[in-house]
């Protein structure tokens, strides 16, 4: 059997660390997890990387791998939300708890909130829509709100969530749109609003079992995926601010 090599989006670093531990303790083969950008990982799999399981931060990269005929089975694994964050302890948070913006009238509230936060020369920290999935969801949401044209020049698109969070946490940017899971882990930011899922394609982390050039699906990989999508996996996801997908 091929060694249990998992290619996972970098934002899943901690989830994967916990899951590996748990899986191993439960008697599974210790997985090796390579963490990098989903695009990088997808290209590598297409180029023949010996990965047995691919967990992408965006379905489109799984689609790319599937086009190359290397995917045996795809399963939805986790869901995430994108949130509007501000520096912890900033004036914006003192006005109240997380605003509920799920109603239709919420749109106007979000737009007003963003405009107010950015002020004259503030920038909105987002993942780079061109490369970072979180940024793509943010762009979609702002587009749905009808303000992307206006806001785009005021964004600070960054390569790395870590940097987006740091920008907000240190007040370099007065606001940012990041994954809820990332916001949860960063004490320096406060979540001002969870953006309604209807504004963007749902944030889903699909997992794909990889067949390397005709080789069978790895039993270890299937077992690990079962663990990830099982109750233990769900607990781990929640612990890190992600939602398991009910099937």
């Amino acid at each position, binding site marked *: 059997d091929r060694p249990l090599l998992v290619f996972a989006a970098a934002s899943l670093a901690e989830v994967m660390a916990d899951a590996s531990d748990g899986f191993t303790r439960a008697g599974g083969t210790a997985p090796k997890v390579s963490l990098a950008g989903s695009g990088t990982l997808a290209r590598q799999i297409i180029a023949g990387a010996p990965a047995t399981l691919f967990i992408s931060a965006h379905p*489109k990269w799984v*689609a790319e791998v599937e086009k190359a005929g290397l995917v045996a089975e795809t399963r939805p694994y986790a869901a995430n939300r994108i949130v509007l964050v501000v520096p912890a302890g900033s004036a914006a948070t003192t006005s109240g708890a997380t605003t509920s913006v799920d109603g239709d009238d919420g749109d106007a509230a979000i737009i007003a909130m963003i405009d107010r936060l950015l002020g004259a020369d503030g920038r909105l920290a987002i993942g*780079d829509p061109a*490369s*970072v999935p979180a940024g793509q969801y943010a762009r979609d949401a702002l587009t749905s709100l009808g303000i992307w044209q206006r806001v785009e020049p005021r964004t600070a698109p*960054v*390569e790395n969530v870590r940097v987006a969070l740091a*920008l907000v946490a*240190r007040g370099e940017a007065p606001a940012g749109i990041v994954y809820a899971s990332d916001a949860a882990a960063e004490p320096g930011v406060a979540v001002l609003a969870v953006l309604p899922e209807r504004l963007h394609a749902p944030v889903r982390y699909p997992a794909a079992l990889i067949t390397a050039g005709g080789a069978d699906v790895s039993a270890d990989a299937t077992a690990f995926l079962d663990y990830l999508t099982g109750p233990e996996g769900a607990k781990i996801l929640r612990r890190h601010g992600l939602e398991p997908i009910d099937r």
Partner: protein
Amino acid sequence: MTDLSWLGLGWLGAAERDAIGLSLQVAATALAGLLPLAIVAGWVLARWRSRARIVLDVIVHLPLVMPPVVTGYLLLLAFGRKGAIGSLLDQLFGLVFAFRWTGAALAAAVMALPLVVRPIRLAFEAADPRLNQAAAGLGVAPLRAFLTITLPLALPGILAGTILGFAKCLGEFGATVTFVSNIPGETRTLSLAVQTLLSAPGGDGPALRLAMVGVVIAIGALVLAETVTQSMRRRLGLSAVPPSRPRRLA
């Protein structure tokens, strides 16, 4: 932004042309700011005997040792609007790096530092101090002798450092994107634009094409630098003449 229409790069989109212009601007600014510093650092490293030299040496090498993202992150912490140095510069001179092309230039300069300093240092080490002694005997002050003898003699090394630095400026990605993010028209240099294209499925072709533009620019710079260097070396009587080898006569 620099007008690049004369380059006949019509086949590139406006965004790409912006990126190229920005890259050149960033590289030029970074090198202009970096060179005087690198010359001083190279000289100190070449001629000081103090053990403290090693501290400077380590600082100069740091950007090479650390992952580029770490360097960018540290730059962000220090030179961001809220950073210690950044806020100071902003207050004192209204100089802002965060999310500006100036920040891209700063990142490029920092990343290029080790590459620029080393050849300059080697050139200073190779410059014969006995020539400065001769100048002193002729009544010429040390600084003047440095400017008129050591510096001209070190020019090939300075040029070599400049070329390495220029190439690095074109290729710099990690520190730049981390420090000043990837804002089209403001901080999206050639390298960032290539990366952006590459991170979308199917972007390989355009990405490689744009990367080639960088290569072509670099070739131009290399040819220029080689030509200048060779003519300098020829004037010094040092041109790339191999140790005379037997040759069959006509």
